[in-house]
């Protein structure tokens, strides 16, 4: 395409955007809203997934021993656990150590424990790490069947709930996004239809003097794409601002919550939204041109 032609297209598109002022604003807002919601869901789903898988990789199995086992029995159990597939680390925590840790975790409230006197209700235990999250379930099952093991626990319930939650949000979000995407598509194609209608005389002349189809269509495509892009840009700005603020706050106060760091995450999300927005714009005008302009 010649540069002069592109200039012409751009000028035509911008003129038409101005002429349709209110409709243009409506289109941009709809796209912005749709994409903002799309962005929010993307960010939420990706973060929940991230949190769930981070927790999963950090999972360790805590193996509680029955009381009154001899040191030899316990060493025996330790060796057997070490030999299991996938197990990378086995650490013995005796009851005194466990109590000390517990006190530490209670912090200033450790006075509560004085009521227990000299008795230590905590069992001896092993902390077992595996190299892949998939092993957690089988390893913990095998361990709990060993003689002398009271039970073996890991945070599976929490993780499963997290994944279930992401799944639900994903389905709900998908429906909402489809709905809003269609709304955006509809309003953009409507805006373009108005433009086509306002310029039907010009289009007619262009056809008679032998302008090619794509030459006639291109300004409208550009107009649609500008609408989509600007809408997406609004969504991106709002989303990035919000997410940056949110992550900063979370890092300050809830540091253990593993949110996805904003770089390059936000850049990727922004790219996706901008591309989707522009594509919606192009698609919207294509629909309109197909229906209202027999070229």
């Amino acid at each position, binding site marked *: 395409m010649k540069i002069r032609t592109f200039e*012409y297209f751009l000028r035509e598109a911008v003129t038409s955007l101005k002429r349709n002022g209110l409709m243009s604003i409506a289109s941009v807002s709809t796209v912005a809203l749709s994409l903002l919601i799309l962005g929010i869901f993307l960010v939420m789903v990706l973060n929940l997934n991230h949190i769930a898988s981070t927790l999963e990789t950090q999972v360790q199995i805590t193996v509680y021993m029955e009381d009154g086992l001899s040191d030899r029995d316990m060493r025996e159990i330790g060796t057997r656990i070490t030999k299991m597939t996938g197990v990378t680390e086995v650490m013995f925590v005796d009851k005194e150590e466990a109590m000390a840790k517990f006190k530490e975790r209670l912090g200033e409230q450790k006075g509560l424990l004085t009521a227990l006197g000299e008795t230590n209700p905590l069992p001896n235990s092993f902390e077992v790490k595996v190299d892949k999250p998939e092993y957690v379930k089988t390893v913990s099952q095998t361990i709990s069947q060993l003689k002398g093991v009271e039970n073996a626990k890991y945070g599976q319930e929490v993780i499963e709930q997290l994944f279930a939650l992401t799944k639900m949000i994903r389905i709900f979000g998908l429906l909402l996004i489809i709905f809003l995407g269609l709304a955006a598509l509809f309003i953009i194609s409507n805006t373009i239809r108005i433009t086509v209608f306002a310029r039907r005389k010009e289009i007619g*002349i262009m*056809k*008679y003097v*032998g302008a090619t189809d794509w030459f006639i269509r291109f300004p409208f495509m550009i107009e649609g794409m500008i609408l989509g892009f600007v809408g997406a840009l609004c969504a991106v700005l709002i989303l990035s601002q919000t997410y940056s603020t949110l992550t900063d706050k979370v890092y300050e106060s809830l540091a253990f919550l593993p949110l996805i760091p904003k770089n390059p995450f936000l850049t990727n999300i922004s790219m996706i939204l901008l591309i989707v927005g522009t594509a919606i714009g192009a698609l919207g005008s294509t629909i309109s041109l197909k229906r209202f302009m027999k070229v």
Partner: protein
Amino acid sequence: MIYMSEVSKVYSNGSVALADVTVDIHKGDFVFVVGPSGAGKSTFIKLILREELPTSGRIVVNGKNVIDMQPGEVPYLRRTLGMVFQDYRLLPNKTVYDNVAFAMQVIEAPRREIQKRVHNVLELVGLRHKLRTYPSELSGGEQQRVAIARAIVNNPVIVIADEPTGNLDPETSWEIMKVFDTINKAGTTIIMATHDKTVVDAMRKRVIAIEKGRIARDQVKGVYGYED
């Protein structure tokens, strides 16, 4: 230049617009197409422009078989045809210069060539001094001159005019016909559908009369042949 052989056009509602039309129009011809309203004149023009396809028959325009033509080729066919309408069809928000230049811009002609050509054709139709004027400030005859300038600016081989003097008084009509005659003398073929008896009878050019979709008459140096 234009060759139609046994061309028929039946619209989807069943009405027969043209039946068994065979004509041969040569380079440099000046042809009036006359006949009652609804006789098929418009369809005749639409077939040449390939706005419509015939139901049967063969049409060749400027050496191209119009019927087998791909949709993508149609714009290039139209670049060899200039169109003039009864209602001028000028763009009200563009100046005289821009209206004419528009026809060249949309086929991506080089800017310098556009300037040169537009000035030349506006000179030819006698409106060189109204470059910066808007159509609403012009008389009907002047607007039609601008439309003619636009039709010929891309150097078409054939100019097709559909009732070009339909909205003009006799004197202005005559002025417009003189412009067409000049263009014709320069070698451009002209096909003009018209109801203007005075003009047809005075010009004594080839006349093709279409009645009820058939060619009723095809005369060299013919006359209008109908009562007004």
